[in-house]
């Protein structure tokens, strides 16, 4: 099985460390930007005045920029840095192609820049963590393919026959992210920067959360497990705890993770069988996740004292511990009765940040503190600064999570409180908002602490770099190319019982580790099973989404209003999905049914209720109410934290694409007739005039409001839920 020939022949190889250093600085730049935006939106929730009335920086538009910058800017660049650094050293080969490496680098940064240039202007698809519009989606696909070719190419020219566990995780991440992105971003363009999701309603929701949940899995978890497997043993100089555990938890993790998405849609109009699958697979996922934690932590067995001195190990060990915590909290929140409380509240936000700040952030910084001195061939500027960074960041995380636990649970309990004679104890949603506002300040403090740690880290790296000699690529002597062997021969060999060489599974898997392409294909198969079983029936079996005869497509004006709702990011604060609970029934009306959103491309069910549900807001208030509420919500609801949207009252509605929008939706199955499309603008203006007249009658608003954006938004809001309106009991 091994090749004794040419044992002594050595080649000289230099690693491409330059591109790694570039990725490293990109990680820091986007980390800084993304978290700064996080601070801004946190303060906007604490105090609605913070946005200064500037449309581009209101909560609804900035929140997607925050998530995109930290996920795709910070976390992905950290992954690229660590993967390029560790893989070259693990397989003793230079990155496959310098050209591809640079295309990967600049292409990816251009994508994040384009996110920053579109999202604040309301150019968004409204699918969480996939908000970027279709031209950028195509760019992401292309650059990801460049990355994949460069990465797999590197493995194909490797000088080590077997690939180490870090690389399994990297490979599984690369293929799965590609599949998730392509399926979820299927959309039909209307114009250069506007598209509609191919899917609608319950189907769109399922695919979105299959994507969203597995973005957490394959962007924010598996790459970082791969990083953990390289950097912890390197930093502590001890053997990894268990090879077999790494095999078992790798395969079980990727196989099970992919099923768990529907836990984001508990009690919604998603078919209940899919919700149940999402729940039970999340529970089973607990131990496969902890397998990674055990392997990480027990690698330190007998060397715990090292954690006291070394900030690298502090970050890595605390990161793994936060991983253990959030992968316990996650399955807990996936249990439906717990989810009934946690969903739509700040608890979810806290959960995500214990993963993002604790796990992703700490692993990234642990790796960076390890790599920077290596990549610059010098000592870290200040170890005590690094230790300080660690402690303020840790305190910051504690503030963040604890405040979100309290606020989430408080608000949920207040919203669910119903008296014995069937009345809401807190009928006014805004009372519950006022109750949790102090915790929004506490969260802001936590964020500020964490952010100051990052700044300290960046200065530390900067000073380290400035004091370093001119950077150069590391050059090493590597063994000659090994002679590839046939898979069947290797397998036959592995099945022979050999004393002292692990179990059959160990030996078979070891063979697989010499065939990276086969391993990649098998990972794709592992994630394929759950994906197909959940998605295919939801898309193709009619019974899962029964139609409701009275539900009709939006009128042209309502559709324009809906696009404004998307542009302003209202879905970041409002759900449109009433769950079958007594309190929600009393507050919002009858539970939402799948047939109600069949014409919603994309779905607008939302995931967070910073404000009340809007699924049945239609005809609850007069038009004038909305007019004044959008101008300044405090005029109507004095304790509101909703931003002001006065520009909607002044901006003229851009109706240049109304007909094209209907046309595009018709292509994806919305039953518009040709005459609807032909008369779209006329119909739109007629409906706008009716609303303007009503506003004029109700409150003396000038009739010039007819061509303003607000009429479209009012038309949309007044339509919501009215197709199935049953008289309020």
């Amino acid at each position, binding site marked *: 099985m091994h090749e004794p020939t040419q044992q002594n022949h050595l080649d000289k190889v230099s690693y491409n460390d330059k591109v790694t250093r570039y990725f490293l600085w990109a990680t820091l730049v986007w980390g800084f930007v993304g978290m700064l935006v996080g601070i801004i939106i946190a303060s906007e929730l604490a105090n609605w005045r913070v946005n200064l009335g500037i449309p581009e920086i209101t909560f609804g538009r900035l929140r997607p920029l925050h998530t995109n910058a930290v996920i795709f800017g910070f976390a992905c660049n950290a992954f690229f840095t660590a993967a390029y650094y560790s893989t070259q050293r693990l397989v003793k080969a230079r990155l496959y192609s310098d050209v591809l490496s640079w295309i990967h680098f600049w292409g990816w940064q251009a994508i994040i820049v384009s996110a920053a240039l579109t999202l604040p202007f309301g150019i968004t698809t409204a699918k969480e963590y996939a908000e970027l519009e279709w031209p950028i989606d195509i760019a992401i696909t292309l650059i990801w393919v460049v990355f994949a070719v460069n990465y797999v190419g590197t493995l194909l020219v490797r000088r080590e026959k077997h690939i180490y566990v870090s690389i399994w995780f990297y490979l599984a991440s690369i293929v799965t992210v590609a599949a998730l992105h392509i399926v979820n971003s299927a959309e039909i363009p209307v114009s250069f920067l506007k598209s509609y999701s191919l899917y609608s309603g319950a189907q769109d929701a399922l695919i979105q959360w299959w994507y969203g949940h597995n973005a957490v899995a394959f962007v924010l978890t598996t790459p970082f497990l791969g990083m953990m497997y390289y950097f912890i043993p390197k930093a502590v100089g001890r*053997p990894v705890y*268990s*090879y077999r555990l790494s095999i078992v938890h790798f395969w079980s993790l990727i196989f099970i993770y992919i099923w768990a998405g529907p836990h984001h849609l508990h009690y919604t109009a998603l078919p209940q069988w899919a919700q149940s699958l999402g729940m039970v697979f999340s529970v089973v996922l607990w131990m496969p996740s902890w397998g990674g934690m055990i392997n990480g932590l027990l690698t330190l067995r007998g060397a715990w004292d090292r954690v006291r001195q070394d900030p690298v190990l502090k970050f890595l060990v605390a990161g793994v511990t936060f991983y253990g915590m959030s992968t316990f909290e996650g399955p807990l929140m996936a249990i439906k009765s717990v989810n009934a409380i946690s969903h739509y509240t700040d608890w979810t936000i806290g959960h995500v940040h214990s993963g993002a700040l604790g796990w992703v952030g700490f692993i990234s910084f642990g790796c960076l503190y390890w790599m920077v001195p290596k990549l610059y061939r010098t000592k870290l500027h200040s170890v005590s600064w690094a230790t300080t960074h660690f402690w303020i960041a840790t305190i910051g995380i504690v503030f963040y999570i604890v405040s979100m636990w309290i606020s989430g649970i408080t608000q949920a309990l207040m919203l669910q409180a119903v*008296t014995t004679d069937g009345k809401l104890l807190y009928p*006014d949603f805004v009372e519950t908002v006022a109750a949790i506002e102090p915790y929004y300040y506490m969260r802001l403090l936590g964020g500020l602490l964490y952010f100051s740690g990052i700044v300290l880290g960046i200065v530390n790296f900067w000073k380290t770099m400035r004091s370093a000699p001119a950077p150069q690529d590391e050059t090493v002597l590597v063994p000659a190319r090994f002679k590839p062997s046939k898979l069947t021969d290797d397998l036959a060999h592995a099945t022979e019982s050999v004393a002292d060489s692990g179990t059959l599974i160990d030996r078979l898997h070891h063979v697989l580790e010499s065939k990276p392409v086969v391993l990649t294909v098998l990972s794709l198969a592992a994630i394929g099973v759950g994906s197909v079983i959940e998605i295919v029936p939801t898309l193709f079996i009619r019974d899962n989404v029964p139609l409701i005869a009275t539900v009709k497509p939006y009128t042209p004006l309502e559709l324009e209003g809906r696009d404004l709702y998307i542009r302003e990011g209202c879905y970041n604060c409002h759900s449109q999905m009433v769950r079958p609970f007594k309190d929600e029934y009393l507050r919002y009306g009858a539970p939402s049914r799948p047939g109600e959103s069949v014409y919603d491309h994309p779905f607008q069910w939302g995931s967070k209720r910073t404000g009340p549900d809007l699924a049945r807001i239609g005809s609850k208030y*007069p038009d004038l109410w909305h007019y004044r509420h959008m101008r300044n919500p405090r005029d109507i609801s004095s304790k509101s934290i909703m931003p002001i949207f006065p520009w909607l009252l002044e901006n003229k509605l851009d109706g240049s694409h109304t007909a094209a929008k209907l046309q595009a939706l018709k292509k994806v199955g919305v039953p518009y007739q040709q005459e609807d499309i032909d008369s779209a603008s006329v119909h739109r203006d007629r409906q706008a005039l009716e609303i303007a007249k009503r506003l004029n009658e109700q409150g003396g608003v000038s009739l010039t409001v007819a061509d303003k954006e607000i009429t479209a938004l009012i038309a949309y809001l007044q339509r919501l839920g009215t197709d199935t309106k049953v008289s309020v009991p």
Partner: protein
Amino acid sequence: MSDKLPIQDKPYDGIQEDNNPLPGWWKTILYACTVFAIAYMVVVHTDFLVHSRSDMQRFEHEIAAMRFRQDSIRALKPPFTYAELTKLRTEQGRLSEGKGLFTDKCVACHAAGGAGNIGPNLTDNFWLHGGRIDSVALTILNGVSAKGMPTWGNMLSDEQIKSLAIYVKSLHGTNPANAKPAQGVLDTL
């Protein structure tokens, strides 16, 4: 005790691996979760072991039970009568409670002092739904959903609604500035 590894000629970039067996507690919990998963699917989605209700059926039962309870409470004690309300008009604290609630919940549409804005003027002699105090209380209780007057009975207690009606009636004849023109029919009861 760590098992041996499949033969591997050299460590990966200096990284060694042990091959400790899977921890027993880890395997036990994994199996237990798997058993739970299967049991849950069987119990909730088949009638094999028990007959289980869907989320929607559970919800419908809950609402039916709630309605039944409400109806029985109402049947025993109608929320208010004309005589009772008239008597309560002089009760200590009623007016101030009503005023507080009105400022909180009603001024957005009826303006301060009930001058009227989105909703009608409440200070004049003209009423859409009757001006006698029990009619006013009933309008507040049931709302006029179609016209944008919320159903306060879903949100406020009967006592609060009584106080509101008392406060609204106290506004009669106050002639506030910028009052909305009269709507409805003359009703001076």
